[in-house]
């Protein structure tokens, strides 16, 4: 049983619980591996823009992942591509959390007309489909990673703001905030010391979610040719793979490595997010206990679904499969 499940949620206990969570471990390992790849990988491979061999040659001893339609090394392109893609994604994730928190806390805390106006704004942003909006923005702005980043922040912050606003609304009516107000603390101090610390886990999960979104949307926009197609990123790799007719010639090696990397990073981050959720969300935490009880055979599956633990040895668990967060 993890500390967070039994003890009141203190931050050190929360961190310990995250560290002891299997999903978190898996997610962290994958994410860290790609971070390392993006940091030092480009130093270890040859220049990805060099024309080194025959175009569209399959994987071989010299070129482990074959070559692109222009005779560039796919391995080098995949490794180097991680750098800009992940950098842009992390910056976008962080910026949309900050923007979302700013708008959300302002709307939720001050209420009244401020709230009405900001809520209207963010709801409009939420209902306008993101990718088409990103496409016309990226088309008009000069192409490059900065444009992509800006476009993704514009299309990505609204959901964060909406959730933060909701949580701020509920926190504002709590006694400890009222106490701080009565004791004459300044608004700024209440926001920074009372409201924001209670949203840290939410913000962390939004950061991870924002990064996942930014990777996917960035790759999609670049695939359309809306990025800087001369730079080497995961998105432009796929753009060139499609442009060089990789599919019609059956050159799977030109698009499979990049796509797998995108999915692996995304999967790692999703697992991290599940773990953050599981540890910090009381409802899911109680579910985790319930799940452990199921696997431990203490509960009869057919008896219903009320989470009551029984010491009945006859009730065998229906499944030993347990991918969930038992620690």
């Amino acid at each position, binding site marked *: 049983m993890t500390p967070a499940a039994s003890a009141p949620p203190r931050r050190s206990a929360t961190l310990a619980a995250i560290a002891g969570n299997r999903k978190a471990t898996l997610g962290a390992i994958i994410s860290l591996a790609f971070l390392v790849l993006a940091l030092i990988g480009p130093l270890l491979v040859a220049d990805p823009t060099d024309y080194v061999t025959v175009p569209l040659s399959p994987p071989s001893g010299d070129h482990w992942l074959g070559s692109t339609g222009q005779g560039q090394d796919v391995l080098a392109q995949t490794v180097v591509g991680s750098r800009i893609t992940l950098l842009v994604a992390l910056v976008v994730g962080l910026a949309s959390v900050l923007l979302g928190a700013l708008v959300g806390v302002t709307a939720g805390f001050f209420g009244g007309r401020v709230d009405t106006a900001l809520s209207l704004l963010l709801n409009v942003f939420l*209902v306008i489909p993101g990718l088409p909006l990103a*496409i016309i923005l990226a088309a008009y702005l000069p192409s490059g990673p900065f444009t992509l980043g800006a476009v993704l922040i514009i299309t990505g912050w609204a959901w964060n703001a909406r959730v933060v606003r909701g949580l701020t609304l509920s926190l504002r009516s709590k006694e400890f905030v009222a106490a701080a107000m009565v004791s004459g603390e300044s608004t700024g101090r209440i926001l920074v010391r009372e409201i924001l610390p209670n949203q840290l886990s939410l913000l962390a999960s939004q950061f991870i979610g924002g990064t996942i979104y930014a990777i996917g949307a960035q790759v999609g926009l670049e695939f359309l040719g809306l990025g800087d197609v001369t730079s080497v990123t995961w998105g432009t790799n796929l753009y060139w793979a499609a442009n060089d007719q990789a599919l019609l010639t059956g050159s799977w090696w030109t698009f499979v490595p990049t796509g797998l990397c995108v999915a692996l990073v995304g999967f790692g981050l999703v697992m991290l997010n599940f773990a953050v959720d599981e540890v910090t969300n009381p409802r899911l935490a109680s579910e985790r206990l319930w799940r452990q009880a199921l696997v431990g055979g203490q509960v009869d599956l057919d008896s219903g679904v009320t989470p009551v633990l029984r010491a009945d040895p006859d009730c065998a668990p229906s499944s030993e499969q347990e991918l969930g967060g038992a620690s």
Partner: protein
Amino acid sequence: MRFALRRLGFYALAAWAALTLNFVLPRMLPGDPASAMVARFQGKLEPEALDAMRRAFGFTDASLVEQYLTYLRHLFSGDLGLSIAYFPAPVSDVIGTGLIWTLLIAGVSLVIAFVLGTLLGIVAAWRRGGLLDSALPPALAFLGAFPYFWLAMLLLYLFGYELGWFPMRHAHAAHLSPTLSVEFIGDVAWHAILPVTSIVLASLGGWMLSMRNVMVAELGEDYIQLARAKGLDSRRVMLRYAARNALLPNVTGFGMALGFVLGGSLLTEIVFSYPGQGYLLIQAVRNQDYALMQGIFLMITLAVLVANFLVDLLVLWLDPRTR
């Protein structure tokens, strides 16, 4: 009724915001349709013709307010400007040709993913801790992490190129003309299988997880215990009691998901050279056809707004608390 009117007002406002953005962007940012035109026809057109073209795009010397009013007037008469990629066809005609294919692919994928994901979520919550509940969510999360269009590329490679089970491109065979014959409809379905499958695979996990989580909470409610205590058939309790109540958040998500799926289907269509909005979009990007891009943006935005409003009405009908 008041709720419905308020929502209608909100969607009208959102539509206005999209329209206005569409007007402001080309006038604020460096690239604009007219100068793209100039670059494209450099030296091949008389200055007067270029001038006329700029006017056709609404870039006149008139004040911004006047330009804006002209823009709105044109829009309401269905005039979205001229396409450059398909010059001199009007954008509205160009978009009209691809709309049905996009709606077909996106609509069918959305419905399949919604129904299948929701059912899986119901069963996973009902048999909590079972095989379906523990193995499927991580697997679907992994699938969901792939970009839609990349799954499309993979399916195309495996089942189109390697195995040759499915056609690799277009919406129907070239020798068939669009009629309501069994042969044509069958051929369209045949061509749609791979694109639809790739979108369904990528979006299934979200529906399943959200349904499962709400359903788990719902199963803990007292009325479920009562239903069981009454000795009701467990299938009835699962479907008509718990699932029915847990369905609401998923229905609410339906409208917003349409935006995602339409976006994803744009990219998927490109992979399959499917003649929908996505294919037009890539032509527009290649030819710097801003008018066409903006037309597609408006079209999709309006479709999403209408869908959201319909979903609101549906929720109003399903959930008495909103009345």
